[in-house]
């Protein structure tokens, strides 16, 4: 019953129809919302008394690093669905997330490095969070190169799903172990987790920016999953009659 429902509702064809319809308004709304949140954060909030104005990078850095991890979780969720129910749509979505995840993770690392220059005095520190984010980036890149190295799409899909699951199990382990490791050498001068009790004036735009950035990235995911579906279902009759 459930399987049949899934197959009807979540066929690439009907997903593609819905996605084409909602994609542009979806993207537009969240781009505007994000620009609004950024403008609010960058121009309408007071200066942080420790870090000065450079703290404003938080409105770009925190959403990016949050979304980079959420994207991996979504990818893992899609892979589970693919492995259990053999739902093709889910692996299309999972595969189309990988390059976006890599880009977002790269941006998170980049903005963190830039932020580090004025606040820590160095652009890189071997602390737990940064190291595990770097590993996350490497995993995204590995996944992309994994899928592109197979000629047979079905094999590639299955390998992709398996490696995503291995990766998602791996992430908490790495996080935990890297946390553990870094405590021995040195404690990071400023950890991002316990920021000095954020002012509500800054908190509201921060939450808004996280939410709208997530929406924006999901819009791009819809876009790229449409591409993936077109690419993979080229020979189907419904694609030809578009």
């Amino acid at each position: 019953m459930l399987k049949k429902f899934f197959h009807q509702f979540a066929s690439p064809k009907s997903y593609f129809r819905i996605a084409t319809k909602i994609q542009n308004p979806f993207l537009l709304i969240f781009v505007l919302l994000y620009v609004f949140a950024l403008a609010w954060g960058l121009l309408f909030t007071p200066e942080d008394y420790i870090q000065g104005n450079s703290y404003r990078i938080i409105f770009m850095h925190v959403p990016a690093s949050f979304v980079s991890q959420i994207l991996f979780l979504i990818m893992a969720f899609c892979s589970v669905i693919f492995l259990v129910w053999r739902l093709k749509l889910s692996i299309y979505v999972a595969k189309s997330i990988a390059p976006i995840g890599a880009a977002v993770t790269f941006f998170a690392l980049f903005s963190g490095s830039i932020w580090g220059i004025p606040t820590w005095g160095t652009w890189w520190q071997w602390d737990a969070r940064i190291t595990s984010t770097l590993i996350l980036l490497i995993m995204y890149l590995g996944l992309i190169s994994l899928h592109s190295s197979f000629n047979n799409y079905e094999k590639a899909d299955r390998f992709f799903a398996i490696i995503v699951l291995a990766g998602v199990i791996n992430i908490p382990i790495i996080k935990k172990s890297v946390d553990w490791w870094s405590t021995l050498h040195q404690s990071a001068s400023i950890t991002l987790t316990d920021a000095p009790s954020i002012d509500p004036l800054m908190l509201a735009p921060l939450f808004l920016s996280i939410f709208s950035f997530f929406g924006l990235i999901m819009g791009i995911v819809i876009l790229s999953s449409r591409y993936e579906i077109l690419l993979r279902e080229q020979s189907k009759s419904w694609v030809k009659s578009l």
Partner: protein
Amino acid sequence: MKFYFESINEIFFMGGHGIYVWIVVIVLFTTLLLLILNFALRINRLVKEIKTFSQIKDN
């Protein structure tokens, strides 16, 4: 909500930290723009290709 800065100059420099903030903003928007454009262009090209191929097959 209160506008924090007093002049355009101040928006630019942000007390010496402006360069970091604006670099990040520029990189962010180029990344997003590249992602969106990349996929949108790819979709357009693929749709065109599929259409021409099916026309050739039909004829």
